[in-house]
Each structure stands twice: as structure tokens, then as C-alpha cells.
């Protein structure tokens, strides 16, 4: 098979389809269990469209992408039926050679993590040339995807590039040879938010230039909303709803889409009540239900739903908008109406015990430098924290927001005593050590210990008020109480981490942190590895624990929507420094520092085309002189680059009339008047 049939498919662009999936079933056998990953899926990808495929983990969206690429892993013994037609070839039944040729001629792929998706031992130029056919073409592609100084980059290795540049290299390989379809599986999930906006814009521009279709797989409705022409929502291996992006997002016609939209945090989510969650979890893929897979979680569930598997059918009045739901569409529309829930969280201010003197934690002028290898045997100094000062009041929740390399996690680790610091002071107010919850709950629980062992370990060092160790029975009781507090069944006590789901593991991590209630709870991106619905439940849990136990919470996140919901105050970090600090709601409403503004503008949301911040965060190995943000700052003047310049975080007085009462905004900028 040569390029000829592919050209034919690409030629059929006008109104044609680049890929057509018909009644696709994919099953795997994993450790003896049969798993149904895709269960009767129909999907058309039209010529030159960006199709956003949205779904939670386990919905089968990545399996679909591998099926399209003809790369279903042999080791998982896939069982397939149906047709996956790409460029006129069925990628399920064609021989390996034919599938390979289709991948070469008609397909491109961009994967989630550009660090692991590029060969670490091969130069960029060669890797792109492998797909492009020649070095000249590779150079042209690198230039086309906006890599600065592409001639020089040809000889770089992947680890010498930043995350955003690496993903651009991936995209260059994907569009090499003018493919008919580019499959992009979570292409921006591993990237910083300002870089994410750039990469999404690039994908869309390439679609316009190359004329290829893009299947954009994402878990984030906001990302799909930004670039997709159509959106498909996937649940438990089937399409729940598909239609033009504005229609699906403004008037969802499937209860699952509605649920996703409502549990999604945005910059306007209400703060004083628990975040809306999707009840229950995704269905067990090894035991598919006879009826609609969403039935157990669906607020509109009817008797019928449990027996009949709904097929996607046109929604009333929209030929192009399909939904797989038996419920009347008017009932789904009602569901999307504003929340009726009345349970309001106790006011954080009450819990904050305002009369109490002292601070839960005080960080003043802390500096932390790592010594890292920097090529050719030289050691380099990585300034992770540069004179950071922050006070945390008892019971208060402070979110630390920043992109990768901003030092936000280091600050948390210094507070937890997991890292030392060179200069400055860390004072802890309470009598207990701070406890920490990590991003990857699975990896932070020792795999061979049971949950009971993990909790018991923490309790063993605990003393009774009168002195003396806790007896075994008491410890068991306290552990059970902690599990109950985080909403886990008592049976979890005897389980190991591997037997728990992602959400349960994060709950266990929280239980371990609060089994002896600390004065300060440190959370390092505890929700960023979780699906939207799970993230919402974990956020609610952190909030309710904080109120029940009166802990101060320091919450590190890269997501401003999350920060706004969990925190009383937000601290924004850039390259090891605090650049803005203020009341959470006010800081989001009226950001002052140019970086905060850019960060906010880059948050993907419905119907917003973000203005793009130029460049990427500089390397903390060589932070720019003066104000570290000046190379990307729209307000920067030559003064900002002055090596002698040290911009402290200062109370904003100029322009303060724009701030709400009681907003003690602090900003690190030499020109506060213009903010």
C-alpha cells in the first residue's frame, strides 16, 4: 500500500470523513480480568474539523485513540469488533504493514507527556526527520510550530528543551507529511497553563494551515471549549453526547454532560457551599451493566434505563446534536438549572478563631537553593525559593499558585521539614508538626502496608493527654474514626493501596494526615491527578476537615479555579518569589500583578480566546535579573531588568481605591501605580 489510497481519502475532504468508527467494541484481559473498555461506539471525524473528545479516566477515550492509530497494545490481548476506518483502511483488521503505512501517510499523534514521548537519546532533528523524511523538511516543521532558532535546536536532545518546546516538537512530528488526521491525546495536560494556551492555539492554527482534522482528547471541558468545532462526551466506552461545541456546552442534553459541567470548577464557582459533585464513581469496566452505564449515578434515572442501552439519537430540533439518553430532553434542561442545594459550609471566618493570638505558621525571608548537575560535570545552583515571606493565621486557608518551577512545592516541603533552607526563618505556631498530602496518592502510600498499618504508624508516636502511649485498641479506634471522617468504609482498614481507587487513595492520604489533627495541613496538588468529579469531592473533604478540625491549610495548586474555591487568601509565585498576595475572591476579581493577570487570562473556559502570554517560564537555574518576570511582562521597562533590583512584596497603596475594603493586597512590582 502506497500513498495513493490515502491521497484519495485526503482528496475526499469536501464534506468527507477522515475517520469513521462503527460499532467499535474493545475488550482487554488484565491480570485475568476481562475489561470492556469500548462498548459499541460510533464516531465520525469530519475533514478539517477539531473534534474534542471529553471523558473521565477509564471512559475509553485513550483506547479509542490507540484503536484509531492501530496501536492497541498486544500485551493486553485486545478483543475487538466493529470497524475503525481511517483513510479507507480498517485499522482493526488490516495487516500490521498496512496499518503502519496508514500511520505514516495519514495519521499523526501527539501524546500527553512530551518528556516521556520523545526518545531521550536521539537528537530532535533526527526524531522529526524520521517522520518528515528529510532534515530540510524537519527544519521547516520546527519553524512552522514556532520553535525559536530551529537550526540550533536540531542538535538538541529532548531534556535540553522546556516542556512547551518539547510538545511543539511532538506536534511537528505529528503534522509531518500532511496527515489527514492528528490524534492528540491530552496534549496539554502536562503543561503549564500559560503554555497550554499557546499549544492549543498552535494546534488550531496548524489545522487551518495543513487542513488536517484533529481529534483532541481531553478530560477538561474548558480545553475542548477553546479549540473544538464539535465536542463528543464519552462515558464508560460509549458516546453519551456529541454535537457542535457551543450547543453541547451551553445546552447539554445528557445528564452526564450536565454533571460534568456543574462539577467543573471555574473562576465563578460559588465558594460558600460545597463544590457540586457527581455522585458515585465510574462503573466497573469488568462488569458492564445491561442498561445505561450512567444509570447508577443519574438523577433522572428511570426503570427503563437499567435495562435498555440507549443509542445516540438526534436531539429535538438538532440534526447535528446526538445524545444517548432515554430521559426527556426537557428534564435534562431542568437539571442544568442553578443548584438547589442549600447546605452551606460553616463560614471559614468562624472556624478561623479570629481572637486567637499568634500564627499557625510564619515564613520569613526563606531562601532555598538546590545544587543540581548542569551539564559537562558542572554543578549549578537552582534558586527554588528567593526570600519568601508568608504568614498563615490559625484556621486560615492559603492557596499557593504558580507554574512548574515557581517553588511552590518547595515552600510546602520546607514548611513540612522535608527540606532544609539556607536563610530566613520558619516558625510553626502549634504544638503538632504539619502534615502533608501529596499529589500522587497512590505513590505516597507504601504498597505493602495496609491502610490500618499506615494510620497506626502515625498513632504510635502519639501520647495521651496524660502521657503514655496509646493502647492497641485505642489506636484502632482512632484510625477507624479517621477513616469515617474522610468518608471511607471501615473495611478499608485492612486494604492495601493497590486495592483502592484513585479517589479512595487520596482519602486515605488525608486520613493519615489528620488521624492526629495537625495545626497546619499541607496539600501539594492533591486534586490535579484526579478526574473532575473526584477532584470536587476531595476539595469538599479538605474544606470540611479544615472546618471540623480547625486546621490551617496551605494548598499548592497550579489551578486558579481550585485556589479560589479552597482558599481565603491566594499567594501567587513566580520563579521562587511571591509576586502577589491577597484575598482569594478579590485577587481573582481584580488581579494586579501582570503575571497574575496573564495566569488568569490563560485559564481555559467556555467562549474565551485567551490572550497569549509570550514565552515560557524561565529556568530557575538562571532566573532573569531584576524582576524575574520582566522578559514576559507587557509593562516591562529597562529598569525592570536591573541586576541590582530587588522587588519586595509590598502593600498596594496606589490604585487601592479599586480594591475592596479589607483587601490587604500585596504586590511585587516596581511600578505599583500602573497596576
Amino acid at each position, binding site marked *: 500500500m502506497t500513498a495513493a489510497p490515502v491521497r484519495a481519502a485526503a482528496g475526499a475532504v469536501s464534506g468527507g470523513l477522515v475517520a469513521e468508527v462503527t460499532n467499535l467494541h474493545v475488550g482487554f484481559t488484565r491480570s485475568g480480568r476481562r475489561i470492556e473498555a469500548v462498548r459499541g461506539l460510533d464516531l465520525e471525524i469530519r475533514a478539517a474539523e477539531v473534534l474534542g473528545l471529553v471523558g473521565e479516566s477509564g471512559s475509553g477515550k485513550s483506547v479509542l485513540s490507540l484503536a484509531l492509530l492501530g496501536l492497541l497494545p498486544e500485551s493486553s490481548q485486545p478483543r475487538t469488533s466493529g470497524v475503525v476506518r481511517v483513510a479507507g483502511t480498517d485499522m482493526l483488521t488490516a495487516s500490521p504493514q498496512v496499518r*503502519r503505512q496508514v*500511520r*505514516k501517510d495519514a495519521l499523526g*499523534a501527539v501524546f500527553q507527556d512530551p518528556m*516521556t514521548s520523545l*526518545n531521550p537519546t536521539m537528537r530532535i532533528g533526527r526524531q522529526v526527520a524520521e517522520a518528515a523524511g528529510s532534515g530540510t523538511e524537519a527544519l521547516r516543521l520546527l519553524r512552522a510550530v514556532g520553535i525559536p532558532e530551529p537550526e540550533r535546536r536540531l542538535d538538541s536532545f529532548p*531534556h535540553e528543551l522546556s516542556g512547551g518546546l518539547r510538545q511543539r516538537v511532538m506536534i511537528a*512530528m505529528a503534522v509531518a507529511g500532511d496527515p489527514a488526521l492528528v490524534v492528540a491525546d491530552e496534549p496539554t495536560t502536562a503543561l503549564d497553563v500559560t503554555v497550554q494556551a499557546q499549544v492549543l492555539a498552535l494546534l488550531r492554527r496548524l489545522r487551518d494551515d495543513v487542513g488536517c482534522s484533529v481529534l483532541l482528547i481531553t478530560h477538561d471541558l474548558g480545553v475542548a471549549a477553546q479549540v473544538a468545532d464539535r465536542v463528543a462526551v464519552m462515558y464508560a466506552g460509549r458516546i453519551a453526547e456529541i454535537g457542535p461545541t457551543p450547543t453541547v456546552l451551553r445546552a447539554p442534553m445528557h445528564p452526564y454532560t450536565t454533571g460534568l459541567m456543574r462539577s467543573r470548577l471555574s473562576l465563578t464557582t460559588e465558594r460558600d457551599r460545597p463544590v457540586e459533585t457527581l455522585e458515585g464513581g465510574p462503573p466497573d469496566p469488568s462488569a458492564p451493566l445491561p442498561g445505561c452505564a450512567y444509570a447508577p449515578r443519574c438523577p433522572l434515572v428511570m426503570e427503563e434505563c437499567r435495562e435498555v442501552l440507549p443509542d445516540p439519537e438526534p436531539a429535538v430540533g438538532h440534526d447535528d446534536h446526538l445524545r444517548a439518553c432515554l430521559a426527556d430532553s426537557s428534564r435534562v434542561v431542568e437539571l442544568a438549572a442553578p443548584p438547589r442545594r442549600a447546605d452551606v459550609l460553616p463560614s471559614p471566618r468562624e472556624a478561623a478563631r479570629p481572637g486567637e493570638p499568634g500564627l499557625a505558621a510564619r515564613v520569613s525571608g526563606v531562601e532555598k537553593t538546590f545544587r543540581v548537575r548542569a*551539564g559537562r560535570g558542572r554543578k549549578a545552583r537552582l534558586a527554588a525559593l528567593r526570600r519568601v515571606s508568608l504568614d498563615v493565621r490559625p484556621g486560615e486557608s492559603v492557596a499557593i499558585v504558580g507554574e512548574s518551577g515557581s517553588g511552590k512545592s518547595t515552600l510546602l516541603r520546607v514548611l513540612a521539614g522535608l527540606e532544609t533552607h539556607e536563610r530566613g526563618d520558619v516558625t510553626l505556631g502549634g504544638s503538632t508538626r504539619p502534615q502533608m498530602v501529596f499529589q500522587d496518592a497512590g505513590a505516597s502510600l507504601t504498597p505493602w502496608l495496609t491502610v490500618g498499618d499506615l494510620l497506626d504508624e502515625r498513632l504510635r508516636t502519639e501520647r495521651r493527654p496524660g502521657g503514655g502511649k496509646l493502647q492497641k485498641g485505642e489506636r484502632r479506634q482512632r484510625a477507624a474514626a479517621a477513616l469515617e471522617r474522610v468518608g471511607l468504609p471501615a473495611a478499608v482498614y485492612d486494604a492495601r493501596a493497590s486495592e483502592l481507587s484513585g479517589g479512595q487513595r487520596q482519602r486515605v492520604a488525608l486520613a493519615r494526615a489528620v488521624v492526629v489533627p495537625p495545626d497546619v495541613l499541607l496539600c501539594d496538588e492533591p486534586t490535579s491527578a484526579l478526574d473532575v468529579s473526584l477532584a470536587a469531592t476531595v476539595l469538599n473533604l479538605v474544606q470540611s476537615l479544615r472546618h471540623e478540625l480547625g486546621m490551617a491549610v496551605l494548598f499548592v495548586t497550579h489551578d486558579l479555579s481550585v485556589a479560589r474555591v479552597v482558599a481565603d487568601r491566594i499567594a501567587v509565585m513566580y520563579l521562587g518569589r511571591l509576586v502577589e498576595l491577597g484575598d482569594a475572591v478579590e485577587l481573582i476579581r481584580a488581579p494586579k500583578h501582570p503575571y497574575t493577570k496573564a495566569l488568569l487570562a490563560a485559564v481555559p473556559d467556555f467562549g474565551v480566546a485567551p490572550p497569549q502570554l509570550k514565552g515560557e517560564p524561565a529556568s530557575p537555574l538562571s532566573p532573569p535579573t531584576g524582576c524575574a518576570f520582566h522578559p514576559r511582562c507587557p509593562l516591562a521597562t529597562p529598569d525592570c531588568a536591573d541586576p541590582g533590583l530587588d522587588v519586595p512584596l509590598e502593600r498596594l497603596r496606589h490604585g487601592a481605591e479599586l480594591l475592596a475594603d479589607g483587601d490587604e493586597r500585596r504586590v511585587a512590582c516596581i511600578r505599583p501605580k500602573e497596576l
Partner: protein
Amino acid sequence: MLLLIAKRLAAVVVILLALTAVLFLLQHISPADPVKTMLGPGASQELVAQTRRELGLDDPISVQYVHYVGHLLHGDLGTSYRTRRPVGTDLATFLPATLELTLFALVLALVLAVALAVATTLNWPGAGAFRLVLLVGAAMPAFLLAIGGIILFYKQLGWLPATGRTDILDAPAGPTGLLTVDSILHARPDVFVDALRHLLLPGLAIAIGPAVSIGRVLRSSLVTTQRTDYTRTARAKGLTEVQVMRRHVLRNSVGPALSMTGLQVGLMFAGVLVVELIFAWPGLGQYTAQSIPVGDYPAIAGVMLLLGGAYVVINTVVDLLQAAADPRIEA
């Protein structure tokens, strides 16, 4: 890279000093008396005492050690009590045979290891049987393998010779001392083939154990690399499986196998010394075996220094190769 080499040179010095120190301690403890060996059982008490004095064996052990190291710094390894020749000369005589056998076994081990790893990873036909044969071989100690090989291939089948380096009497004796190389230099294909035939049995006996160790490590890293995201990227580009294996998988998998090779070389030295005895191979193994019973400490020390130095050199080469294979590693 220069820094690494400098560090390793320093390591060689420290290791060799430690080795000689241990050896001197052993000599002190050992009941074997080298002077008796030198002079024979009939020597008079006076002569023995005089020789002991001349050799410096009456001095405290620390003084002897300092003397030895002092001479070592001038490149003098001492004189063998047994052969009465400088140890350096002896080593130069016996080293080439051992070097040839070890290098041959190393190459054989690497070839077998790569074949084993690639065949089982890609599930080639016959890979299972191949793996079984190697595993059974690796389960046996080298000397048993050697004896078994002689019985089967020499005694029963008569395919391969069992002793020495060559049966050809006028085989060239220079310039490298490596018979296979010298035969090529002298344009003697008959000698080359004969030398290879002689190398095969002892080489296999030494190589099979390391081959399986290296092969298993290589296989597990091949399997891991095959599941990496960048291998998936390579496949998504539409490269053939052979291209994927050659360009993307192999190079990223050699690191652990190289480390294992470095470790196995140490074990191979031990194997060589034993196997040389069985095959009457005129190398350092023979030399050492004859030196140990008579307490010829300068000779034993010379061999140990040589092998210790070689071990460090080979592991340095391994580190440099790893740095060459992976640009993220700083040499």
C-alpha cells in the same frame, strides 16, 4: 569525561594498594614458606636463614610492604621465587593467552546475551529452546561446563580440541601474542581457524553464565523500553518494528546491560583462571595455580594487581559507554 578518568585512575591506585595490603596480610598468616620452595627440601638451615635475610623476609611485615610498594612505584613487581624471573616478564609471557581467552569469552557472552534478549523479547521461533539451553548452561559452574564440553565435543564427537591454544607447531609467536591476531598479521588462515577452534570450548565455558546474566538484564530493559511512550511515538510515526527496535529501543536499553557486563567481567576473570587449568591453557591461570601452592607471593601479587587494574579499567570503559549511549548522563 577527563574528570571521570582522573577519578578512576585514583581509584585504581587505592584499589591496588588495598589489594597488595590484603595479600601481604595473607602471606603473613599463610604456613607456606617460599624459601623452602626456592632452595628445595635439602637446603641447610644457614642457607635458608641467609636467603630469608637477603629476600627481606625477616623484616617486619610493614617494612616489607613499604619496600614492595616502593618498588612497585618504579614498575618493579619483584622476582618470582619459583621461576626466578622478574614477575613483570612472567606476566608479559602469560598474559596474552589469558587476554585472548577473556576477550573472546566476553565477545561471545555479549553476542549470546543480545541474541537471547532480542529473540525472547520479539518472540522469535526457537527462542524458548535457546533460552532453555542457556539457562541450563548458566546453572552449572564453569569447571563442570568445561569438563562436560570436553567429554561431549572432544571425546564423544571429536569436533573440537581439548587442550592448548593451537596444534600447529610453527604458529607465529608475535607481535601481539594474541594467536588469532598474529595469524592474521602473518597471513596464516590455518592458524587462525585452529586458534578459534581451540578458543571455542573454554570460551563457551566461561561465557555462558555471564551471557545469561547480561541477557536477562538486557531483556527486561528491552521490555520496559518497548512499553515507553517514545516507543509508542516511534510506532505512531509509522516506523517498522525493526526500525523501532534499532533506532529507539536498543540504545535506550543498553545502560543496565552495560553495568551488568562490568560486574560480570570480574566473575569472568575468576572463571578464566579455573578453566585454563582444565584446558591446559598456557595463561595466567596456570601461572597462578603453580604459584599458590609454593607461596610465590610476588607472582600472585603481580597477577592480582593486573586483574584488579583490568577490572577497574573495564568498568571505567563501561561508564564511558553509558555516557555515550545516553546524553542525559554526564561523564
